[in-house]
């Protein structure tokens, strides 16, 4: 069943000199409930802009974004968003951060067990009362992920959440994301520049061209879970995508 539909979406922003800059051009794709879509492309191709359009943080000049048939016009709790740097509120503890959306929604009677569940799942036990600057980058990202997922969104948008992490921490956060996706069946859209990450996590991979960003191809990932990064099939798919990303 089609859950997310993007039709003829274009977006033009202004560059530093006030000149119009075409970021996205004629984007069309659909995603079904429970899918894991990765958007991959060279930097500046409008991946993040596309994700912002889906969340409602930004609106397109042309075309529209619909979720379950409803047009997206503003951010909503049903579409979670994890930023590149997590953007945990530095003045709140890890636990306060994770429960902040629930508190906004339900007041003091929020689901504390759900928060505890994700604190444990994310390996944050013992750090509930730490402030974001006191924990590692990986932990902060897992907390940011938990903060969004406790809202039980229909759609979780991930904006390069592992981009600033080192290789070990990155694999660790990828594992957590995969686990959450399998457990909750939440539709996820991940923006990344890491081909391995896209193959490891997603069911479909959208390859974008350099600016103005257009969809070059949508590759369906045939690999079964659990995926092995060193298997031949994985390597083959990696090569295929690598070739498609060679623009110059």
């Amino acid at each position, binding site marked *: 069943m089609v859950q997310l539909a993007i039709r003829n979406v274009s977006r033009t922003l202004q560059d530093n000199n006030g000149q119009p800059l075409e970021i996205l051009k004629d984007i069309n794709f659909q995603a079904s409930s429970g899918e894991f879509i990765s958007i991959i492309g060279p930097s500046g191709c409008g991946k993040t802009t596309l994700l912002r359009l889906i969340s409602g943080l930004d609106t397109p000049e042309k075309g529209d974004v619909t979720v379950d048939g409803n047009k997206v016009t503003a951010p909503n709790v049903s579409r979670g968003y994890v930023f590149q740097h997590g*953007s945990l*509120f530095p003045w709140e503890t890890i636990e306060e951060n994770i429960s*902040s959306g629930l508190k*906004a929604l339900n007041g003091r009677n929020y689901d504390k067990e759900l928060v505890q569940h994700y604190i444990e799942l994310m390996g944050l036990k013992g750090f*509930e009362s730490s402030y974001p600057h006191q924990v590692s980058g990986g932990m902060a990202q897992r907390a940011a992920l938990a903060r969004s997922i406790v*809202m039980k969104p229909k759609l979780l948008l991930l904006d390069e959440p592992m981009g600033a992490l080192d290789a070990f921490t990155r694999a660790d956060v990828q594992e957590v994301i995969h686990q959450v996706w399998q457990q909750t069946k939440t539709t996820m859209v991940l923006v990344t520049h890491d081909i391995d990450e896209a193959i490891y996590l997603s069911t479909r991979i959208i390859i974008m061209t350099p600016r103005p960003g257009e969809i070059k191809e949508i590759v369906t990932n045939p690999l079964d879970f659990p995926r092995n990064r060193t298997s031949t099939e994985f390597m083959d798919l990696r090569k295929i995508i690598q070739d498609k990303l060679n623009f110059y």
Partner: protein
Amino acid sequence: MSALTTNAEHKKNKKKRELTLKYWKPWSQFWNISGIVIILLALVENISVPSQEDVNNKPYQIFLIVYFLYLSFTTVWGWIFRQGHLRAYSGHFSQLNVSLGILLIVQDLLTEKFSILAQPFFVSFAQIIEQITTDHKLLWDSTVSSTVLWLVSFIVGALIGVVFGLLMGRYRQFNYWAFPYLKVIGIIPAAAWMPLTLVIFPTSYMSEIFLIAFAVWFPVAFMTIGGVQGISSEYFESAKTLGFSEWRIMWKIVIPGSLPSMFIGIFTALGLSFTMLVISEMMGAKVGLGWYINWARGVGNYTQVYAAIVIMAVLFSLIFVISNKFQTYFLRWREQNNH
């Protein structure tokens, strides 16, 4: 900081590290004992050298004895227990205590003992302490009155400043209408309004509140605006995707996010508020430390002026320390890596 330590361990280590960062001078038997000896010397000097001026040295001698006992106690404590806050503290300040002891001896000799710096404009510390003890009731009342006046005015000024700052920082419309006025009116020194406020306000007390609050309002509002505008847009966007209402964004993002800058404004305002407190009390009041100084000047008793100054030094330092504690508490979430 290792990410592998849990929160409890982390807190304990942090406390220990903060202690050695704050009181960085190592414990030294020599300097601690020197401090005790110097204070003892100051006492012996004060008793044995005859005074040229008319003074009751008893309160000063009691002060020195209490000081001596305090230093002896901390030295023995630190020597026995070898760790903890008191040892770190007294060890760190032992050299300063020595210099203070020398200063006490020198000023005592220069003033009351040999009259090189003579009355009425220069008085010994002993005479100041004597003055404080004889005037203690009036001084206490003045101190209480000044403290209450300061507290009320500062809170009023800071609250108005914070509210204006938050609104101007967050809402463009509000900023458009209010900021030009803030810039022009706020820059006027509060003292310039004094002749007018004395006539406009029905009571001098209200005019004093106005003047002090006015001095506080501007820096607090100005720094709060900057603080709000400096908050990263990612926090606002996160809040929106988490379903925060505008009210909640104000309470959970705008206020805490602007607090660091707000506190800079508050500390700037602190100094200005003390100035305005003294000036406004000198002009219109019939009570308070500023009034006391003005009255003492009128009757030509400069020892009283010194007495009030000493009390102000203690009072304002205390207010400063308490404000600092507030800041440390409210900004406990901030990374402290500037050592």
